């Protein structure tokens, strides 16, 4: 183990038992790198094994998992293992020539605080068939130290109330993925979704992030975020629905929002 590195050991124990905040996660990654020590699952497995052992010794008789949850798990699995998994069907967001510009938004609905944020230009790439799927890439990123996961807040707009998912983002890698389930299908000839990423530390104005579509049958999609501008600390991710091709100035509303704050 890491008896010669008490701080490193302390962080590994903390990660295994109660989790790390972002600063601690960065510190751990740095220490592992500096010391040339390969990260391992040892302590997390030990904590899980301890949890199992104490669970067995604990008071028993709690209710089993509800049947409707087991049914839902089977449905989720059916979708996941389907031959044509829907989560990779909508990977590419259409790249736009203007993606290199910082397009200013003037959201009429935004408060002063919201206006004091900048949206990342989320250039979107077409997937090379030799590259990992979006799902695989997202999972790989989840395992990287310093990666944060921000869940979409329960949307207030009725049509989007069932939208769930999250945004996974890593500052150091400048890599991220949006996971969306239950997002209503759009007709690209009529409207398109537009992605925005908010980073108040970078600029005071929001920037266009590109457009994407949700085709029929796509219950869950993973959309990679290919940041063209460095994002230091994204505070929020937001989706609006706009005319085909997106807009330069959006009046909103924000249909789905994930706020890191």
């Amino acid at each position: 183990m890491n008896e010669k590195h008490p701080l490193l050991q302390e962080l590994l124990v903390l990660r295994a038992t109660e989790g790390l905040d972002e600063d601690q996660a960065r510190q751990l990654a740095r220490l592992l790198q500096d010391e040339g020590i390969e990260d391992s699952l040892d302590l997390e497995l030990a904590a899980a094994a301890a949890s199992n052992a104490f669970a067995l010794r604990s008071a028993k008789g709690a209710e089993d998992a509800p049947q409707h949850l087991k049914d839902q798990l089977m449905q989720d699995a059916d979708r996941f293992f389907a031959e044509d998994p829907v989560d990779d069907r909508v990977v590419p967001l259409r790249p736009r020539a203007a993606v290199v510009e910082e397009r200013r938004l003037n959201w009429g609905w935004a408060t002063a605080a919201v206006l004091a944020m900048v949206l990342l230009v989320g250039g979107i790439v077409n997937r090379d068939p030799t590259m990992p799927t979006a799902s695989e890439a997202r999972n790989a990123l989840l395992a990287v130290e310093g990666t944060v996961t921000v869940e979409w807040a329960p949307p207030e707009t009725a049509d989007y109330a069932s939208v769930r998912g999250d945004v996974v983002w890593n500052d150091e890698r400048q890599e991220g993925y949006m996971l969306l389930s239950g997002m209503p299908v759009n007709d690209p000839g009529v409207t398109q979704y537009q992605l925005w990423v908010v980073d108040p530390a970078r600029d005071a104005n929001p920037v266009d992030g590109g457009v994407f579509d949700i085709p029929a049958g796509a219950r869950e999609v993973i959309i990679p975020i290919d940041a063209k501008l460095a994002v230091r600390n994204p505070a929020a991710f937001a989706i609006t629905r706009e005319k085909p091709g997106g807009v330069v100035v959006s009046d909103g509303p924000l249909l789905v929002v994930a706020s890191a704050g």
Partner: protein
Amino acid sequence: MTTILERIAAGDRDAVAACIETYSGLVWSLARRFLPIEADAEEAVQEIFMELWNKAGSYNPEVAGEVTFISMLARRRLIDRRRKLDREPASEPLDEMQPALCEDGQRVLEASAETQRVLGAIETLKPEQQEVINMSSWLGMSQGAIAQQTGIPLGTVKSYINRGLLRIREALGEPARPDKASS
């Protein structure tokens, strides 16, 4: 003997149902310990199983038993979720603790030779250290909360957990007998 996760990774669809049937109780019990609101727990369980389908191929039975690996993935997700909620699980006195392990969860743990071996290793620790590790691992309490509730100095709490996990890790590394649940 092929484990359920290895079968899933090999594309055996029957193993998916077996995985849900075998482990949903344990994962549910863990989720209910970490997340007091039932809807949160249900959502977390769905996320955990999705991650399980994704990571089935990374499971190595030579490193740990299947039930330990699944608990690890579940705990990782639950810890993360709880941190977002900025909430600690209820820290009621141990002798007043409500039932927390369901029958399905109990069945899979009782069938796990590895869990029995780890339990044996834990029982070699002194009672005060066992209680601290219980509060940290199964009850999900922070080191600070444990120190506050038990009156044990924080440094001692940290030391108990650190040494205890190292002892348990050694027990995990002992010659493994396949878990019955992994048939």
